[in-house]
């Protein structure tokens, strides 16, 4: 991308130089050079370098070219598909629940209820609170020894003995999902609220005059206006959750028994626990191409670049 863009910019620049009396060319450079330099340094070079590395076995000590060997080993390992499955489950569950909660709350606050502004401010916290803090809160609440949820459940007679949510096979994934939803539901909420508030109130007035019920107004006015935003949330939030590392790493490190090991966790393990950079970069490469594939679908379906160009 960058070289093609650069040559085009050069062309644009020379067209402008014809009448460059007040530093227009310099301004052009000041606008684009930082961005291009930055993209080349932190995106293009590292990614190309890492993709190159993924073609070598143990590239740090004594690199041995293995071609696509790392990729073959990776995809041939049954565990990979398990981790991929975990990623999908985690992404679908967190994105879906976040959307439901965010949409519900956005509709509620759009009703202009009393205390709506305060509730909106409150919803900023989960989004802005660092992931680590969120993990601490939920680790405490779900703690088997002193956690208040266990205390409550035991007191209410719902369970006999406390549950170690984050380290029990059947509860680990749900616990991570709940923690994630707590943090990320407000993302969907704010985006949907912005869309809701952009709907022309006259449309509802007209629907009322024409005799539409609340449900019909929602179906025929609200939902069509939200559909684009909902699809984008599902897609973009879905991608981000699929690639989420910190929240899972900090809550379970991928355990118990790799029950919550998703692809991002696996990349980290390969690189820093097993110090196998050939395999780690190969997995990062696989994730890169997965992402690129989804991005192509996204660009085809939504043409988001139309918003600016």
């Amino acid at each position, binding site marked *: 991308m960058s070289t093609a863009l650069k040559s085009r910019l050069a062309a644009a620049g020379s067209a402008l130089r*014809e*009448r460059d*009396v*007040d530093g227009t060319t310099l301004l052009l450079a000041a606008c684009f050079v930082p961005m291009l330099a930055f993209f080349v340094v932190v995106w293009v070079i590292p990614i190309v370098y890492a993709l190159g590395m993924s073609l070598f076995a143990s590239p740090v000590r004594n690199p041995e070219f293995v071609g696509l060997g790392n990729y073959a080993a990776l995809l041939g390992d049954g565990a990979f598909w398990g981790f991929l499955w975990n990623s999908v489950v985690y992404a679908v569950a967190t994105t879906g629940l976040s959307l439901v909660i965010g949409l519900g709350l956005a509709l509620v606050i759009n009703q202009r209820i009393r205390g709506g502004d305060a509730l909106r401010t409150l919803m900023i916290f989960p989004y802005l609170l660092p992931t680590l803090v969120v993990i601490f809160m939920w680790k405490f609440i779900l703690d088997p020894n002193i956690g208040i949820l266990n205390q409550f459940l035991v007191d209410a007679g719902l369970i006999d003995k406390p549950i170690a949510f984050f380290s029990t096979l059947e509860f680990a994934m749900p616990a991570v999902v709940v923690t994630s939803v707590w943090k990320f539901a407000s993302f969907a909420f704010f985006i949907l609220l912005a869309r809701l508030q952009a709907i022309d109130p006259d449309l509802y007035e007209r629907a009322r005059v024409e005799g539409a019920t609340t449900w019909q107004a929602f179906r025929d006015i609200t939902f069509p206006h939200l559909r684009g935003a909902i699809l984008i949330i599902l897609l973009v939030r879905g991608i981000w959750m699929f690639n989420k590392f910190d929240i899972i790493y900090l809550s379970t490190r991928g355990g118990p028994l790799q029950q919550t090991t998703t692809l991002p966790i696996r990349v980290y393990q390969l690189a820093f626990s097993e110090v196998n950079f050939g395999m780690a970069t190969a997995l990062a490469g696989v994730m890169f191409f997965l992402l690129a594939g989804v991005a192509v679908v996204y660009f085809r379906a939504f043409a988001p670049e139309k918003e600016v160009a």
Partner: protein
Amino acid sequence: MATSIHLDTVRKEFRTLGNTHVAVDDLSLDIPEGSFTTFVGPSGCGKTTTLRMLAGLETPTSGTVSFGDEDVTDLPPQERNVSMVFQSIALYPHMSVRENIGYGLKIHGVPKAERDERIDEAAAVLQIEAQLEKMPAELSGGQQQRVALGGAFVQDPDVLLLDEPMSDLDAKLKSDLRVEIQRLHQELDTTVVYVTHDQTEAMTMSDQVVLLRDGELAQVDPPKQLFDYPNSEYVAQFIGMPSTNVVDCAVEAGDGGTALVGPGFELSLPAGVEAPTSDRVRLGIRPQYLDVGSDGACRLSVDVEVVETLGTESVVHGRLEDGTPFDVVSDAVDDAVAGDRLDVSFDLADAFVFGEDGETILFGSERAGERSSSPAGAGGVTP
């Protein structure tokens, strides 16, 4: 110091996605110094592009623009002593009214005391003294427009450019500001170039009207001349409200000379008028030049569809027998209703004859002195 402006075969092309769009097509034009010149035409005719080339915001693809004797074609806006009022008003939202008006002076290093004096003066002329310390967002649309005007003329420009400055205002404010702008023009030593799509503004304010069509010059003349002597069907229809009626006619040679035959009427051309060379022409007659009744030289019948009453006179919208739309402005049709058939007549002296290419081939009034009717709303403006 006001300056004259000369455009010599100025051309502006825009290229988008491989398509070349000619916005201004080899336009040559002289604008006298100190004049009030209006560019008018439908949207997309190239009037704003031309204005922007005068400002230096666009560079012509070819041709030259000069101010007086100086070639300014490639000069950037900063190096021309012009001021411009934008269609969007373009006040700086973060500056007070005073700072907005004085920004150009500040750029030119005018000391603060003198700046303030000139700003106060401008504000007094525009009656916005009370708003000087407010922010633009606190002003009404009309006040914002005055601030924009103030910012433009406080710099004492050689050329003052106005790009549809009133398009967002309501009718009352428009007529107030129209007077204001003409008063400013009289007081200032500056050449004013005004762009509008509203022919009423063009006709009422200007010394000279430039009518453009698809980037080409249709006609440039003083308003009255433009109204009375349109050089094409396009000009005749664009200038004047309601539009000039245009009727297809056949040219037939008869015993008493040449005659124009249209739907429901036959009009013999008097001796001495050169007969059209083609066998089809279009006859143009302004709605204001029609008389109700049948005592005029040329008679025809109109089927009334809609009658608009405008106080002292009425506008009748109707059709000729072959369906050609035909309007009549008269103070004698108060009782006409839809479905009536109205007999009207006109004098050949008031008519235009257009050739097949749309050029005017005959002005009836070239036979001066023969005009009998005195048109209501001469100058083309319906009150």
